[in-house]
C-alpha cells in the first residue's frame, strides 16, 4: 500500500460536497423538501469507515448546499431490519404527510420492505421516526430470492386513485422491476405485469422511476402523466456498479413501461448513463419548493479500504443536480449542479485565449483545489475544413473511446483539448478533462468528453481509469464544459450536462498550494479558442448537529 501521510489524507476531505464527519456512507435515501427544509438521509455506518452496521444518517439544509448534520433517523432496532436499515424512498401525500418505505435486512438476512413515518409531523426537522407496528409490509414474492428484493421507489398515483411503487429484482440473469399497488402503504397488491425487464443485466438495485416533460424545463411531480410526458426508468446494476437509464413511455393501465430505443435499453452496456465516472445508487426527488427534480448520487472511493480506515471516512455525495429531458435532442437527460452552488463562488477570473496545437498553458488562479470552471471552446473553422477535406486523416470516430484510446496524451487531428486540474507545476500529477473530436467514416465529426485519471496520483493503491463517452453536439453549438473541483472529487459536465463524469482523485503532490490549473491543446493540427471563467469556491461549512446551529439555519 502507498505510504499515505496525514497531510495528504487530510487534504482529500471536500469543502462543499456532502459527507459525514467520519466513517462510511453510501446510498442517498428518502430525499425530500418539507416545511422549509431539504432533508437528506443516507446509508451510514456509525462504527467504521467500511460498509456494515448500516443505519440512516440524516442532515438538513435550506439550500441543498449548507448542511447541518442531525442525529441518526433510523437504527437497526427491529428483527426486520436488524441486519441493516437499507435504502428507501419518501412519498409526500396530498395532505402533506410523509410516508417512508425502506428495505430492512432481517435477522435472517431476508430483504423485506418496511413503512416508517415522522413521529411529529409538526417538527420541520423530522428528528424522530416511527416504524409501523405491522412491518414488514412486503416480503419477497414467490420466485424472488430473499436477497433480490430491495430499494422501493417513491410512490405515484394511478388513474384509479391508488398508489403505485416499483422494486428492483432479478430472475436468473434478467433484471426486472416489480410493481405493487396500495391504498394505505400497509397492504399491497402485486401486479402480474412487470414495469420492465431486460435480459442479461443482473440484479437491479435502487430503481428510480419518474416523469420528465418533453416541452418544459421544470421538473414534474412523480404522479404527473400525459401526452407531453416521457418516463425515465433508472436502475443501478449490481454486477457492474453502474447507473443506467432509458427514456420511454409508461402505461398506467397495466403498470408497464417500454423504452423509446430498445437498442439502448436499461442496463445494457450501450445504454445511457447519468454519469460516466463514479456515480451509483442515485435517486431523484421532486422539489415542490422550486418545481424541479433533483438527482442525488453516491460517489464512492477509488482508493483502498486501508486508506479509508486510515483517513477515517469513506465516500461522498455528488453536488445535487437538476435533471430534465434534453428538449433539443429528446433522447437524453441533461443534468446541472443546483443553482444554489453559485452561492459559494468567491473571486473569479475571465480568460479568452487562442491555444495553438501542442500547448500547455498555466492558468493563474491561485490554489486550484476548490474551483468552479465554465468554459466554451471553438475549433478554428479552417482547421476543421482542412481535416474534413484531407482524405489522409483517418476516420477514427467509430473506433474511438475515452477508455481505450490512450487518454489525454494521444494526439489526434482535432484534439484532445481542455483543462488539466489538480496538476502540480511539473505536471507529474494531473487530471485532464477534455474534448476529443474525431472524424467519422461519414466525414461527420463526433465529439467525446473524457476525464483521464491515469496520471492523477503517484499512489499505487488507487484506481485510475479514463472515463467518458460521446457527447451530442448540435449544429452551431460551441463545445462547452463545466468543472467542479473540490479536493478529491472532480465533476465534469459536457455540453450543458448531456454527458457528465465524476472522478475521485488522490494526488500526493498536487495538493494544497501546489494544486494548479492548466489549459491544454494536444491536437496535432487544430487551433482552439477558449473563453472561460474560473471561480474560487468557498467551503459549505457543513456543520455537526447543535441546537444553535439549527436555530441559525432557521433564521
Amino acid at each position, binding site marked *: 500500500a502507498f505510504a499515505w501521510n496525514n497531510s495528504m489524507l487530510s487534504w482529500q476531505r471536500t469543502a462543499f460536497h456532502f459527507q459525514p464527519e467520519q466513517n462510511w456512507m453510501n446510498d442517498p435515501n428518502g430525499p425530500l423538501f418539507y416545511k422549509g427544509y431539504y432533508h437528506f438521509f443516507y446509508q451510514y455506518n456509525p462504527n467504521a469507515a467500511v460498509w456494515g452496521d448500516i443505519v440512516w444518517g440524516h442532515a438538513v439544509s435550506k439550500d441543498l448546499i449548507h448542511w447541518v448534520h442531525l442525529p441518526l433517523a433510523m437504527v437497526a432496532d427491529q428483527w426486520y431490519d436488524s441486519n441493516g436499515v437499507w435504502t428507501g424512498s419518501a412519498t409526500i401525500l396530498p395532505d402533506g404527510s410523509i410516508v417512508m418505505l425502506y428495505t430492512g435486512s432481517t435477522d435472517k438476512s431476508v430483504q423485506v420492505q418496511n413503512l416508517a413515518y415522522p413521529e411529529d409531523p409538526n417538527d420541520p426537522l423530522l428528528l424522530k421516526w416511527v416504524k409501523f407496528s405491522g412491518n414488514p409490509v412486503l416480503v419477497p414474492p414467490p420466485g424472488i430470492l430473499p436477497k*433480490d428484493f430491495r430499494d422501493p421507489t417513491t410512490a405515484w398515483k394511478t388513474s384509479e386513485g391508488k398508489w403505485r411503487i416499483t422494486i428492483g429484482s432479478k430472475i436468473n440473469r434478467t433484471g426486472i422491476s416489480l410493481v405493487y399497488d396500495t391504498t394505505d402503504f400497509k397492504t399491497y397488491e402485486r401486479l402480474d405485469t412487470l414495469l420492465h425487464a431486460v435480459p442479461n443485466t443482473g440484479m437491479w438495485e435502487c430503481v428510480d422511476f419518474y416523469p420528465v416533460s418533453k416541452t418544459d424545463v421544470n421538473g414534474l411531480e412523480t404522479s404527473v402523466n400525459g401526452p407531453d410526458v416521457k418516463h425515465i426508468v433508472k436502475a443501478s446494476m449490481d*454486477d457492474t456498479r453502474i447507473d443506467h437509464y432509458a427514456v420511454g413511455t409508461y402505461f398506467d393501465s397495466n403498470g408497464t413501461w417500454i423504452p423509446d430505443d430498445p437498442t439502448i435499453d436499461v442496463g445494457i452496456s450501450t445504454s445511457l448513463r447519468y454519469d460516466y465516472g463514479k456515480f*451509483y445508487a442515485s435517486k431523484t426527488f421532486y422539489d415542490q419548493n422550486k418545481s424541479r427534480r433533483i438527482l442525488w448520487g453516491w460517489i464512492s472511493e477509488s482508493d483502498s479500504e486501508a486508506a479509508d480506515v486510515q483517513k477515517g471516512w469513506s465516500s461522498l455525495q455528488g453536488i445535487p443536480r437538476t435533471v430534465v429531458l434534453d428538449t433539443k435532442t429528446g433522447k437524453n437527460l441533461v443534468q446541472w449542479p443546483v443553482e444554489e452552488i453559485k452561492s459559494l463562488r468567491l473571486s473569479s477570473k475571465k480568460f479568452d485565449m487562442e491555444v495553438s496545437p501542442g500547448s500547455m498553458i498555466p492558468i493563474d488562479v491561485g490554489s486550484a483545489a476548490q474551483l468552479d470552471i465554465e468554459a466554451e471552446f471553438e475549433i478554428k473553422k479552417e482547421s476543421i475544413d482542412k481535416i474534413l477535406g484531407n482524405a489522409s486523416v483517418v476516420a477514427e470516430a467509430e473506433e474511438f473511446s475515452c477508455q481505450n484510446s490512450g487518454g489525454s496524451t494521444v494526439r489526434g487531428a482535432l484534439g484532445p483539448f481542455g483543462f488539466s486540474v489538480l496538476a502540480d507545476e511539473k505536471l507529474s500529477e494531473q487530471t485532464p478533462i477534455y474534448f476529443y473530436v474525431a472524424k467519422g467514416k461519414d466525414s461527420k465529426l463526433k465529439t467525446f468528453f473524457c476525464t483521464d485519471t491515469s496520471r492523477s496520483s503517484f499512489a499505487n493503491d488507487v484506481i*485510475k481509469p479514463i472515463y467518458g463517452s460521446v457527447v451530442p453536439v448540435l449544429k452551431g453549438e460551441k463545445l462547452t464544459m463545466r468543472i467542479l473541483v473540490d479536493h478529491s472529487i472532480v465533476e465534469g459536465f459536457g455540453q450543458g450536462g448531456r454527458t457528465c463524469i465524476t472522478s475521485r482523485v488522490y494526488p500526493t503532490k498536487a495538493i494544497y498550494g501546489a494544486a494548479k490549473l492548466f489549459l491544454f491543446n494536444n491536437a496535432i493540427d487544430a487551433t482552439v479558442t477558449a473563453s472561460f471563467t474560473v471561480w474560487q469556491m468557498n467551503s459549505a461549512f457543513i456543520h455537526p448537529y447543535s441546537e444553535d446551529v439549527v436555530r441559525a439555519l432557521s433564521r
Partner: protein
Amino acid sequence: MASSDALLPISAREEDPLLSDGSRSDPNLETHFRRRPVKGLLAVSFGLLFIAFYVALIATHDGSRSKDAIIDETATSTSRARLAGVSEKSNDQLWKLSGDRNTA
C-alpha cells in the same frame, strides 16, 4: 518483519535489572542463592515459551507469504456487502481479482 531474536533478550534484560539492583550486598545471601536456581528455571521456561509462541506465530501468520497467495485466497472470498446481499462496496475486491490498479 520483526527478527525473532528481538524477542528473546527482553526476558534476559528483565533478569539483568534485578541482578544489577545491588542485591549482591543482600544480607540474606542464602535466600538469594536459593532464589537463583528458581530464577534460572524461570528464564529457561520463559525462553522456551517465547520460542514456542514465535513458532506458532510463524506457522499462522507468515508475513512473507507471496502476495499472490493472499490474493488467491481472498480473491475468492466474498466481501461483507456481497454476503449481506447488496452490491460490492469496496474496491479491494477489484484489485485482487484484476491485479491491475488502473482498471475500474
